[in-house]
């Protein structure tokens, strides 16, 4: 089958919508078990060979951040109406590999408390599954992605097996902030990450390009295209530039019959399948369900609870940065090597969970500094030294609680390149998040103060940055009146429709979500296999 053939296959076992890590893992897992799988992906394939050029786009002024992966056109239009702006197109990528083409790659497990917020604190709700249920899938996810890590984190949940690869050693600037933390009785440890500290799974070891986020030219950083390639080698078919417009159900409204997708030549096709998995991320997944409204389901598919699109959460991101009078050796790798989870498992309900990580890429890079400055010759070295030297920084990811009014809906006024209403994002922060943020920022400031740095920037508590981790918009639960999918990740309303996404998280904790997304995707694939 040629790569450019975008006509549908004959009714297949499984149709997966979205080729990010969630879709890739489900597709591979099911193709590997012998099922006939088609993946429909809205964005293009991005050959590894193009990545250096994309890195250059990132490094040279004249190109916007969103140019690197071609986001922000009419295809990607959206509106943001919440108390805090949601910069959607900086938080996602459309392409084979999905948003992980651009992620940093930290892969902590959620802590047990994240599954029990209702019981432990009377906040949010419990997950229908516990840490122990997910634990074997976590181990499998770590091995699929290739996680480098160490068992030096006294606050991490229990695990039986070592990480697949050794952790990355701490950086020079970690030693500066680590010493400060020692004075403050804050325990610091390594960061598990889906990045090769040695050659793994046919991919190279990290070679230190230092541009991981937004692009790793070497392939040492895991991204979702890895499992798409593996799925293809197990016989799955992947159709790129094929955005699904809607899902169509049978006359009883019990099963999805087809995914209707558009192709670049302007035609629409129907892919039929026995099972469907929507893996479009936590914004486009609810949007697709809402776009799939029918006479029988006027409020959108799988939405009898009314929860589709609601409970939008993200991790609130706070940066506190400063300058030291000494060199801090930033920007020689593009990822962090030390964090602290000491403040994660709290006694009182609020302030809630957060963690603090140390940046290895604080301040402008020397390349940016040289190309941005405008000067040359004599002036150049001084200008670069002035803007590059002495930066140091921390970031905190902070938990927020689910709120039904924080949500994704269809914008009544604006349509995309196919005439579909664009997603309207109404993101709210909430008191729990704000109070937790105040505590996090205090810890971040204390660390920089103790290190002798002059703080030059702190994100305000009530105006967080998006952690680029949207969650909660198709929540999982046992009660069909309150949730969209059950503990098997299948929608309550349609018997052959599953969701693989952080959209299913009932609460979001403060840990980076992707390892949990992958663990749940493996679980979903197992249940779909049983059904087939």
């Amino acid at each position, binding site marked *: 089958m040629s790569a450019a053939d975008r006509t549908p296959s004959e009714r297949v076992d499984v149709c997966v919508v979205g080729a990010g890590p969630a879709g890739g893992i489900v597709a591979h897992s099911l193709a590997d078990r012998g099922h006939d799988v088609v993946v429909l992906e809205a964005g293009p394939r991005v050959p590894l060979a193009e990545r250096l050029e994309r890195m250059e786009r990132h490094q040279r002024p004249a190109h916007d951040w969103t140019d690197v992966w071609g986001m922000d056109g009419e295809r990607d239009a959206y509106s943001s109406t919440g108390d805090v702006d949601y910069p959607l197109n900086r938080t996602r990528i459309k392409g084979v590999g999905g948003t992980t083409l651009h992620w940093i790659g930290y892969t902590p497990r959620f802590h047990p408390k994240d599954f029990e917020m209702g019981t432990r604190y009377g906040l949010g709700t419990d997950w229908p599954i516990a840490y122990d249920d997910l634990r074997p899938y976590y181990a499998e996810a770590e091995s699929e992605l290739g996680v480098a890590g160490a068992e030096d984190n006294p606050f991490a949940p229990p695990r039986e097996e070592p990480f697949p690869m050794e952790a990355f050693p701490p950086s020079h600037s970690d030693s500066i902030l680590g010493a400060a933390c020692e004075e403050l009785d804050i325990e610091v440890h390594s960061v598990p990450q889906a990045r090769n500290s040695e050659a793994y799974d046919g991919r190279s070891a990290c070679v*230190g390009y230092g541009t991981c986020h937004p692009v790793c030219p070497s392939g040492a950083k895991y991204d979702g295209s890895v499992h798409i390639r593996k799925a293809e080698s197990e016989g799955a078919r992947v159709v790129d530039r094929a955005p699904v417009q809607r899902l169509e159900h049978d006359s009883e409204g019990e099963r999805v019959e087809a995914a209707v997708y558009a192709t670049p030549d302007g035609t629409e096709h129907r892919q039929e399948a026995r099972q469907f998995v929507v893996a479009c991320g936590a914004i486009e997944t609810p949007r697709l369900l809402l776009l799939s409204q029918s006479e029988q389901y006027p409020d959108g598919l799988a939405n009898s609870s009314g929860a589709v699109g609601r409970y939008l959460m993200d991790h609130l991101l706070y940066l506190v940065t400063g300058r030291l009078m000494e060199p801090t050796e930033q*920007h020689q790798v593009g990822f962090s090597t030390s964090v602290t989870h000491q403040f994660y498992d709290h006694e009182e309900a609020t302030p809630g969970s957060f963690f603090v990580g140390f940046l290895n890429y604080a301040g402008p890079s020397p*390349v940016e500094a040289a*190309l941005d400055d405008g000067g040359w*010759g004599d002036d150049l070295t001084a200008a*670069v030294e002035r803007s590059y030297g002495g930066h140091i920084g921390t970031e905190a990811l902070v938990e927020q609680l689910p709120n039904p009014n924080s949500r994704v809906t269809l914008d009544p006024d604006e349509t995309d390149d196919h005439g579909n209403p664009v997603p309207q994002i109404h993101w709210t922060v909430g008191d729990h998040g704000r109070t937790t943020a105040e505590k996090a920022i205090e810890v971040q400031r204390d660390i920089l103060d103790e290190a002798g740095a002059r703080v030059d920037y702190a994100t305000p508590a009530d105006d967080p940055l998006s952690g680029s981790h949207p969650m909660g918009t198709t929540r999982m639960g046992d009660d069909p009146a309150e949730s969209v999918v059950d503990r098997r990740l299948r929608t309550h309303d349609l018997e052959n429709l599953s969701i693989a996404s952080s959209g299913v998280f009932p609460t979001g904790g403060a840990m980076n979500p992707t390892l949990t997304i992958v663990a749940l995707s493996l679980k979903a694939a197992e249940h779909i296999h049983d059904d087939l």
Partner: protein
Amino acid sequence: MELTRRDAVAALAAIGVGGGVVYGATELREGRGPGESGETPTSADDTGALLETTVALAEIIYPPEVTETESFVRTFVSGRIEDDDARREAMVDAADALDADARSEHGASFRELEPEEGDALLETLGMSQVDPNPEGDERQRIRYYLVNELLYGLMRSPKGGQLVGIENPPGYPGGLDAYQQGPE
């Protein structure tokens, strides 16, 4: 700090150009443009002129700490345009534009100017304030395709990193030791 042809090959390899096979300046001057074996002398001439222009420009814009820039620039620029006709054309156009400015201000092409004259011309053109833009006006394209192109080549190479005391600048795959070590 001396720049060498080897530094340029390293810089190119980092950007994914050439498995070390990079056209030498002589081949280009003699009319054998990259991949063309002398078949289209005009473009080889253009390329030769472009190389001369970039060598003259680097002399002015590279910090005084870096010396012996010629072979670095020739190798770097040749490698960048070897398999990239669009970049070659855009760079040649930008160099032509710079030459036209040089002629109207100083009566000679840019590569024939004294470094002080070249420096003054860049100032006159407002190069320090111009936003680089590959699709912009003439001055913006000069900034993007010539000035920033050369600065990019330098700053993402280890020698460029050394200017500010780091061994492994972003964009250069210099391994995993440098980030762990403190300043020397």
